[in-house]
């Protein structure tokens, strides 16, 4: 019967082509527009590392200004970072911050260029599941020994070595030579959850080096630095000893026991520091897992959330429209419905027939909606490209296709319920008489 009903749906479409096309258009526009926003929200606010997002924690220590009651600092001071590193209490851990450097290629044909890099620890790569094209991250020994090693992004390797395996080669930046130990494969998590403080939709860094080198070589730091207290004294050491926060600290903890234990450790540490005159506010240290941290940092832009509300309402308008049009269409079929009842159709089969008819219109709307969504996303890409946001992730993937078509069909059937109920419940005898 399903295919029979499907054929009836197609025939019915042809009977009122204008009305039916209006419905398909309304659904396509409503669903298409909603899917554009859905795709944005789904990716921008989605879980970037679902299999372990509940095991990765951003460490938050409240070293803020005791005379103000603002939020705890988003990053850590150098003093606290060093203390946590030395305690080494987590399963995996990394301090991380950004730097900028001029790369001076050996090949005289390539002019020196400015690049952004990230200082990190050996654990950074396994913690965040960073994929490698060649080689690997460095060893923990390299961290301790401050070895001048570097991991290149795929793009940097392309630029410097034409995409060849460059492991073992050396490159020159920040006035020194670094040995390449690894080259990343394509890695652009959206949002850039491991550093949402410096732009959650920024591009990834071009170089990765042992974090200690940033301090040791006094490299030029990039990214946010916030100080609530003036630096005492002059020089780099004074900066390191200050209450300025500029380092992010992530730990990987395997279960909730480990999480509780680590938080206790942090609080004990903070209490010790209180004795030294630091951590003057009430204890307010936290471990945020990836998703909690993104919510805490309001990674999903207001614009996306506002658009989500408006797009949902736009979809509602389209569906109301569809209800009205379906009502018109189905009530226009009263004579046919009456005749079918006389010929032996029970209400259930009529209901199913018309649900399939609504679903058929929904399917067409959904397919056209995919095209609307595709062009909508291309448009948004162009618009956001002007804002220098990463936009490659915005595309119609299988999730979007499935959700679009399914949503379109379900929505249309739901919109059709009342019209179908009305049409199937009219007294058949009335409509069998001459109109």
């Amino acid at each position, binding site marked *: *019967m399903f295919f029979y009903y499907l054929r009836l749906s197609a025939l*019915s479409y042809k009977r009122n082509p204008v009305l039916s096309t209006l419905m398909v258009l309304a659904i396509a526009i409503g669903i298409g527009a909603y899917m554009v926003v859905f795709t944005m929200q789904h990716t921008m606010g989605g879980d970037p590392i679902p299999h372990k997002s509940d095991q990765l924690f951003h460490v938050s220590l409240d070293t803020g200004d005791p005379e103000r009651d603002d939020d705890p600092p988003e990053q850590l001071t150098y003093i606290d970072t060093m203390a946590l590193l030395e305690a080494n209490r987590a399963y995996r851990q990394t301090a991380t911050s950004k730097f900028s450097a001029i790369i001076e290629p050996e090949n005289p044909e390539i002019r020196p260029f400015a690049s952004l890099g990230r200082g990190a620890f050996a654990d950074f790569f396994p913690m965040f599941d960073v994929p490698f094209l060649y080689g690997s991250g460095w060893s923990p020994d390299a961290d301790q020994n401050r070895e001048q090693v570097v991991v290149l992004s795929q793009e940097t390797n392309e630029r410097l070595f034409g995409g060849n395996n460059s492991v073992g080669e050396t490159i020159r930046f920040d006035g020194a030579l670094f040995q390449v130990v690894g080259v990343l494969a394509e890695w652009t998590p959206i949002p850039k959850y491991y550093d949402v403080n410096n732009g959650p939709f920024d591009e990834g860094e071009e170089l990765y080096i042992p974090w200690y080198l940033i301090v040791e070589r006094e490299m030029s730091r990039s990214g946010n630095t916030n100080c609530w207290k003036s630096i005492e004294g002059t020089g780099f050491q004074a900066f390191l000893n200050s209450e300025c926060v500029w380092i992010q600290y992530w730990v990987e903890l395997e279960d909730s026991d480990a999480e509780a234990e680590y938080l206790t450790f942090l609080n004990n540490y903070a209490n010790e520091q209180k004795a030294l005159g630091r951590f003057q506010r009430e204890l307010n240290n936290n471990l945020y897992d990836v998703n909690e941290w993104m919510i805490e940092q309001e990674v999903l832009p207001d614009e996306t959330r506002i658009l989500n509300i408006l797009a949902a309402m736009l979809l509602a308008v389209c569906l109301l429209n569809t209800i009205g049009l379906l009502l018109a269409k189905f009530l226009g079929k009263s004579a046919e419905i009456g005749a*079918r009842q006389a010929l032996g159709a*029970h209400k259930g089969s009529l209901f199913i027939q018309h649900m399939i008819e609504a679903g058929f219109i929904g399917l067409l709307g959904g397919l056209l909606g995919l095209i609307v969504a595709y062009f909508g996303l291309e448009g948004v890409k162009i618009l956001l490209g002007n804002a220098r946001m990463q936009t490659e992730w915005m595309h119609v993937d299988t999730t979007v296709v499935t959700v679009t078509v399914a949503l379109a069909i379900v929505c249309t059937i739901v919109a059709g319920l009342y019209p179908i109920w009305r049409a199937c419940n009219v007294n058949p*005898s009335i409509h069998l*008489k001459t109109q």
Partner: protein
Amino acid sequence: MLQMNNVSKVFRTDTVQTSALKDFSLTVDEGEFVTITGPSGCGKTTFLNIAGLLETYTSGTYLLDGVDVSQLGDFQRARLRNEKIGFIFQSFNLMPDLNLFDNVDVPLRYRGMKASERKPLIENALESVGLASRMKHLPAQLSGGQQQRVAIARALVGSPLFLLADEPTGNLDSNTALGVMELLQEINDKGTTIIMVTHDQLLAKQSQRNIHILDGRISTGDQAEALAPAAEVA
């Protein structure tokens, strides 16, 4: 086969109560050709709708082929309609976007038959009304008389116990109407019971048995004779 005892139908709106049928009793036996006549609003159509299980009634009993239909739900009523009753309407009520084959196919679909079983039945039914060659045509491509023949084929295809015809010739010119009536007579001669509502006194007189309804009740023969012309004028 069809047995109504004291069937009444009352329509209620917020303010008004109207009785469409009052203590209506009728028995139709197998093979009969019964015509129902009466003025507009007398309850002919209500009778037909109740007989065809398209409407429920307020009181009384109705046995269809020995089954008391008052307690049946929509599903069983639909099944009875499908298997025991063939409908023919004044305005044909063919599905405009289905071709003749598919139109005749409709009741068989609801019977859940396999395609291989349906096909010969449909072809036979169309053959019997003389339209086998136009199977792929749409109703709109046919004349009124031809459309009514398709409707008759559709009503017959499931071999029902009886046909309910509501003014089957009302939308046809007199020549065509004659052809349709001949066809119905032929069908009746082959054994199918027919109950037909009509305005046409002539047709009614030709039939085996004529029931005249007046104000929701069966009137006696005399009254029928006396009142019929007045009804025509109205």
